[in-house]
């Protein structure tokens, strides 16, 4: 296989008809280029959409209370209820697979009435009473100052971390932000930080109009006692939140005296499930990419097979001579196989390089033009490249198989007779 003389033989044979070799190689070159580009584009789409998903920890769910729909233990249906802080504690104790539970209370809302004032300026913003873990579930860039911490929680500090649009709405340019006070529903909070959330989904604007304050200070200031309106729950990566959420509901239902079958009482949004859907979609797109790419590659491979058949036919006499001089059928077969393999792999490598070049150009243009909706950083992983190469090697062997068999089918005596 790694015989230098054999390689020289092969190169000589391929060199003896350069134009044809080149045209044949083009088929495979084109096929692998398409394959790699398709996968890169799929990847770009995936990157783009994933970015739109925000970088919220994907193994998460959100849960909020609604009205009960089934009477239970003497309590009527249609009852309103709230989660309690003790529920959070209980969930943490009973389900060790949960990584973070962030209880939250909310005031106002996006596009609601004005609720925040500072000096002469007012604005309508979403106010969240949150725990420090929340930033680990939903990463945000702290552009100035700091985020909430546990000292803020324990000391019921009335501090706030505000979004960039809050800054725009309440502060003049070049005004000092950190350390200044804003008045939320009549209660003063000191600004300790500003944040920006990159890659927001459609709610980028909503995020920018948010104010985070410590959960405890929020409850105290706005009379929420130990009620909890909403929870963001994240599980450890090795356990799917979708699998453990029934457990969570069961605990909550028994805690809040809700009928075990009353599924409408607790509202939730399973981010992991949605994410799995998207991931599944891109899984399918990748398969489609491989499928279509491979088909294009297949036509290239058939081209090589075809040409090798012609080559074998043309060289029938030469093959006969070689066999008369002592070449065994295996010698001949190996040579034809290696020729097609070399042709396939070489053109394939050129194709991969060319595709890489095109991808580089795409990225360069994307960098210049700025972010594009639903598309970012088209690329292929090393695994993909290696897979492509394996496909090439296999197809090279396949391409050579029929011609190689054909080459030794004819008896040398008949081969020699051909003019």
């Amino acid at each position: 296989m790694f015989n230098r003389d054999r390689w020289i033989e092969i190169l000589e044979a391929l060199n003896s008809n350069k134009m044809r070799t080149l045209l044949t190689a083009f088929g495979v070159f084109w096929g692998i280029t398409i394959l790699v580009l398709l996968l890169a584009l799929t990847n770009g789409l995936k990157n783009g959409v994933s970015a739109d998903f925000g970088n919220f920890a994907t193994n998460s769910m959100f849960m909020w209370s609604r009205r009960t729909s089934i009477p239970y233990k003497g309590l009527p249906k249609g009852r309103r209820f709230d989660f309690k802080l003790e529920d959070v504690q209980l969930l943490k104790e009973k389900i060790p697979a949960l990584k973070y539970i962030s209880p939250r209370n909310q005031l106002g809302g996006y596009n609601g009435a004005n609720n925040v004032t500072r000096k002469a300026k007012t604005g309508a913003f979403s106010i969240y009473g949150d725990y420090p873990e929340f930033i680990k579930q939903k990463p945000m860039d702290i552009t100035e100052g700091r985020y909430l911490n546990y000292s803020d929680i324990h000391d019921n500090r009335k501090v706030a971390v505000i979004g960039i649009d809050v800054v725009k709405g309440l502060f003049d340019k070049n005004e000092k932000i950190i350390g200044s006070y804003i008045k939320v529903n009549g209660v003063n909070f000191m600004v300790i930080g500003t944040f920006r959330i990159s890659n927001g989904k459609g709610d980028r604007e909503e995020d920018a109009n948010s104010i985070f304050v410590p959960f405890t200070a929020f409850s105290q200031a706005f009379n929420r006692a130990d009620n909890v309106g909403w929870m963001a729950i994240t599980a450890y990566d090795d356990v799917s939140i979708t699998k453990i959420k029934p457990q969570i509901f069961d605990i909550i239902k028994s805690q809040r005296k809700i009928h075990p079958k009353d599924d409408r009482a607790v509202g939730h949004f399973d981010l992991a499930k949605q994410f799995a859907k998207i991931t599944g979609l891109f899984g399918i797109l990748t398969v489609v990419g491989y499928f279509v790419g491979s088909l294009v590659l297949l036509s290239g491979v058939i081209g090589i097979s075809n040409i090798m058949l012609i080559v074998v036919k043309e060289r029938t006499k030469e093959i006969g001579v070689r066999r008369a001089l002592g070449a065994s059928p295996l010698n001949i077969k190996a040579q034809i196989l290696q020729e097609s393999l070399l042709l396939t792999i070489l053109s394939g490598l050129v194709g991969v390089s060319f595709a890489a070049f095109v991808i580089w150009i795409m990225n360069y243009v994307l960098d210049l033009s700025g972010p594009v909706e639903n598309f970012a950083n088209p690329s292929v992983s090393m695994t993909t490249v290696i897979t492509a190469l394996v496909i090439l090697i296999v197809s090279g062997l396949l391409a050579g198989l029929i011609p190689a068999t054909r080459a030794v089918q004819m008896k040398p005596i008949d081969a020699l007779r051909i003019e």
Partner: protein
Amino acid sequence: MIEIKDLHKSYQMGSNSLHVLKGINFSVKEGELVSIMGSSGSGKSTFLNILGMLDEADKGAYFLDNIPIKDLNEKIAARYRNKFLGFIFQSFNLITYKNAIDNVAMPLYYQGIKRRERTEKALHYLEKVGLADWATHLPNELSGGQKQRVAIARALASEPKVLLADEPTGALDTKTSYEVMELIQGINDEGKTILIVTHEEDIAHMTKRIVNLKDGVIIDDTIVEQVRATANV
């Protein structure tokens, strides 16, 4: 060197079978220069092909240097051809994209000999046929006579026991034919056993023994006075 006993061969042509060789008994001693003659259809090519292990007989025994040649698969046949036989063809059959020395080295390549040794040997045989200066030329840069001499060098390169030549002068003019025969005679003088299939009387008379084939049997086998090729030039 060659022992053939009661050799039969027939071809299936559609529904009828064509009996080409009908019991040939034939033997060649070492160092002989034999010509096999016969009109077309006499079976001389088939006979040579069987001798050359390119074809197999239906019946009969064939010993080459006391080795029984039978039931060969392609792999063993290839090895025997490489070891025991050197072929010279009417149309030279050089590989067009290889230069003279690489063509000569080809049988050695299939013997698995290292490149350097191969080139050395090949050059030696090219010298022997007087073409050392043409070593790096491609076949299409050579004249017919030169091509056949390269082919002879190639046949000699593997140091075979027997040279088989199928109409070696068939594609050459008289003058070149004689030059080639002179070379063949010279090789025979050194002791090599050579069989030549030809239909040219003058070429046949340059050998030492003429075997005449007709309708698949040997009708005549005579030792002749060898005519030296030089005398005719």
